[in-house]
């Protein structure tokens, strides 16, 4: 057991020796990985999707049994048959997907499976809540044990997940891409919590493919590629501030991750054509104030804003899912205000949905049928009137798979069997295949690794070069700053600012984003550090 006395012990808190994992399909996810994690440190595990990070951590958490190799905790050999064994040994993991029950309070969620009772068999909820409050205060979680999870923000839910494994007594905490769904503020807050945990002697393994936050947060970084360790770096305070040291280590890590240098951001002239999308005073009569905006052909318009400030509503308004109460929406000069979704899609809107699993794909359907989504009424996939042509659908899907390099054994497997990056490639490919005059890209790179991210960025850039309009909705200010020709800022359902990227910096945008809002999580400047 890695008790508190292990903090000063010379033995690493976790040592993995020669971990091999070969899946039944013959895929070698881990090929002889050695890893040592110092007690009381934050250890980054960096790598692209499919590099073997998650598999390795699932081995450590007892979710996956390794083909070969062993685990040592503070020098003691252990074998985990299940996550319960791992928790017993004080190793806890927060998965990418949340496992909380929305209708329960924090306390009810945390005691689930291990409910404390009074002598008379009644649930000892109040005592449990007090303990959780104490735990939350000690590490700066800022969680109300009696709040309902459904009422909490994504960032708070993430912290509850961590609190949950702490509550189970975890000394070693594995976090699988915890910031993928968080806003900059929420990420900053999470980083604060993790630093406190480190100060108090806990060990954190932090899986990520975001270079910047790994450098900001971690003491040591191990980079995985193709199931092998390709390098390790010690990160010191000198690397964290901006400067040549940081640039050097960033370049280093990036090269290790992808095995090549990253292409530089596109520098290009801005020569927009005719407007493809015009909103004049358009509003849903509820969440959105009357919106005036336009997107021209040949430009990328970035829409910045804190999550939940009307971005989703605006997208729904443009797509026609949300009714337009007043004002007008023009697509290529045609008034589409009253058009249903289907007709707008056919008139040339493509949409890369923010949450691909719930809005862009039907996970239990085959890849081929997912490729058809949005095209189901198009005669090119029909034969003899209304029959669907399976052949044409499969051919179309196969072409998407080929052109956009979707890694899948066949177009007949379900979308759920693809990795996140490949799901996104499928979605992007499908929407681009429409040859849309306007593409609405909502968080198109969320949860994607570097290679997939630059793939998406290149595709958006190509659309722009092709004279099409792109509306890029993103929480990632850096993404907005690098890609956009113009930036719009939305706050509280209204447009509060517009600028060219050369005219503003991230701090100004952050101020605009939070203007007029009483923000619980602090200013954007705080998040940028």
């Amino acid at each position, binding site marked *: 057991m890695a008790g508190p006395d292990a903090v000063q012990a010379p033995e690493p808190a976790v040592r993995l020796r020669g971990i091999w994992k070969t*899946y*039944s399909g013959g895929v070698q*996810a881990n090929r002889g990985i050695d890893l040592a994690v110092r007690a009381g440190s934050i250890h980054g595990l960096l790598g692209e999707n499919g590099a073997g990070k*998650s598999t390795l951590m*699932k081995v450590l958490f007892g*979710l*996956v049994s390794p083909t070969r190799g062993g685990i040592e905790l503070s020098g003691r050999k252990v074998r985990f048959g299940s996550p319960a064994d791992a928790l017993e040994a004080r190793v806890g993991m927060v998965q990418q997907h949340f496992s909380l029950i*929305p209708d329960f309070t924090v306390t009810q969620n945390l005691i689930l499976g291990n409910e404390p009772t009074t002598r008379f068999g009644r649930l000892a909820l109040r005592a449990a809540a007090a303990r959780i409050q104490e735990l939350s205060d000690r590490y700066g979680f800022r969680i109300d044990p009696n709040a309902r999870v*459904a*009422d909490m*923000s*994504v960032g708070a839910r993430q912290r509850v997940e961590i609190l949950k494994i702490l509550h189970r007594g975890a000394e070693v905490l594995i976090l699988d891409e915890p910031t993928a*769904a968080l806003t900059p503020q929420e990420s900053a807050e999470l980083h604060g919590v993790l630093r406190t945990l480190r100060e108090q002697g806990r060990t954190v393994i932090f899986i990520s493919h975001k270079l910047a936050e790994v450098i900001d947060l971690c003491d040591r970084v191990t980079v995985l590629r193709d199931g092998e360790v390709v390098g390790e770096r010690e990160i010191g305070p000198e690397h964290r501030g901006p400067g040549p040291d940081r640039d050097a280590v960033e370049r280093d890590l990036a090269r290790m991750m992808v095995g090549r240098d990253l292409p530089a951001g596109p520098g290009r002239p801005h020569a927009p054509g005719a407007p493809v999308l015009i909103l004049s005073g358009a509003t*849903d*009569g*509820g*969440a*959105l104030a009357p919106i005036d905006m336009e997107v021209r052909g040949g430009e990328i318009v970035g829409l910045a804003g804190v*999550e*939940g*400030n*009307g971005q*989703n509503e605006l997208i*729904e308004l443009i*797509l026609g*899912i*949300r*009714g337009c109460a007043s004002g007008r929406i023009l697509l290529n000069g045609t008034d589409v205000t009253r058009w*249903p*979704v289907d*007709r*707008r*899609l*056919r008139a040339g809107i493509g*949409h890369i949905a*923010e*949450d691909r*699993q*719930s*809005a862009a794909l*039907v*996970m*239990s*359907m*085959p890849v081929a*049928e997912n490729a*058809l*989504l949005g095209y*189901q*009424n198009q005669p090119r*996939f*029909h034969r003899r009137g209304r*029959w669907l042509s*399976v052949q044409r*659908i*499969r051919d179309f899907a196969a072409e998407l798979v080929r052109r956009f390099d979707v890694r899948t054994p066949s177009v*007949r497997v*379900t979308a759920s*069997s693809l990795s996140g990056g490949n799901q996104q490639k499928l979605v992007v490919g499908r929407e681009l295949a429409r040859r849309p005059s306007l593409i609405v890209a909502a968080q198109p790179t969320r949860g994607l690794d570097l290679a997939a991210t630059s793939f998406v960025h290149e595709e958006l850039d190509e659309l722009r070069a092709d004279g099409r309009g792109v509306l890029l909705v993103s929480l990632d200010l850096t993404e907005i700053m690098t890609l956009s020709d113009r930036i719009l800022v939305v706050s509280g*359902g209204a447009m509060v600012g517009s600028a060219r990227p050369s005219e503003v910096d991230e701090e100004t945008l952050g101020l605009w984003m939070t203007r007029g809002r009483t923000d619980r999580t602090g200013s954007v400047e705080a998040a940028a550090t």
Partner: protein
Amino acid sequence: MSAPKDPGNGRLRSAGPPDSALLPATTWSGRLTDALGGPLRNARNFALVLVAALVAGIPLLYAAGSDPLNGYGALFEGSIGSKQALAETLVSMMPLLLGGLAVAVAFQAGLFNIGVEGQLLMGGLVAGTIGAKLDLPAGIHVLVAVAGAMLAGGLWALIPALLKAFRGVHEVITTIMLNYVAFSVSRYLVKPGGLLVSRTQPSATELVAPSAGLPRIWSPTRLHAGIFIVVVAVGFMWYLVFRTSLGYRFRVVGRNPVAARFHGISPPRAIVQAMLVSGAFAGLAGANEVLGLHHRYFDQFSPGYGFDAIGVALLGSLNPIGVAAAAFFFGMLRSGSVLLQAVAGVSRDMISAFSGLVVGFAAAVTLVDRILGRRRRMRTGEGLPSPAGVTTQEGAPV
């Protein structure tokens, strides 16, 4: 995680008008449909369920005072052992099959249509009435009667469909309640002095005209031309569900209504369409019985076909081909029960218990499958079970 799924988030206080984009991404029925996919696995599961039910039936037969071997012998002898027996099996199969298709197509769109029984009754009543009261040339008459029955079934299903699509009223509640309305209305119309009651036969309509009847095709058995309707219906339904844009829309809406909306498929519209198709097939089942078998509508001509059809649809994994196989099996049970009673002295009610076993196992096998799948994934380490419990099997033959 995204805002549309998160109504309790409360970050946008002026949440706007009630928005059906807030539908859950996966409905429970959608999850059920997912768990039931995969043709190959389905065939295996189908066989598994039957074997399990046959084994579990052994103590039942003992308890009923019969030698199991003898009992099963009689059951098979009485269902497929002779020309007469096979014909009776097919006759029993028909309403279950058409009803099963009705249940299955609604399930595909994420709807649990428990109202097939009521829709079937209304279809039978209309078919019987048209057959008896109208005077049309042969051929045309039967077509009109069948069309009327399908229309009646569809309209009966339209009420819960509209309530579900535009008012969010759960279809399980409304379809069950409309069953009772259908029972009462039909009984009222054929009660003594009722509007449609026959002059010679209480609680029934007049015999349908020969021009509206489905002729017997395999004398001396009771097998009638409805079997052709049934065969066409199976093929039609398979094509509809798996090979048309309409069926595709049903399946997308049943599995992920949010993605459907984002891609120009209107869930309310698909709900109405799926219920119309479902109700029409239920009505067809009623017409088939009335025009082909009884040649008149009489009160309680259906011994609960619409309810048994739910089990048929589940055992058949919602796939029309599977539904046909399941219906044939249930048909065997029904027709075989006669000989079972005569030879082995087992009450016909035993068959109800046995049907219950089959449905129970059919429900359990998806559970077993899921557990096995999870264990297998654990061993091979293919990650955590997905919410649907399926990762590699195919949802549909495309």
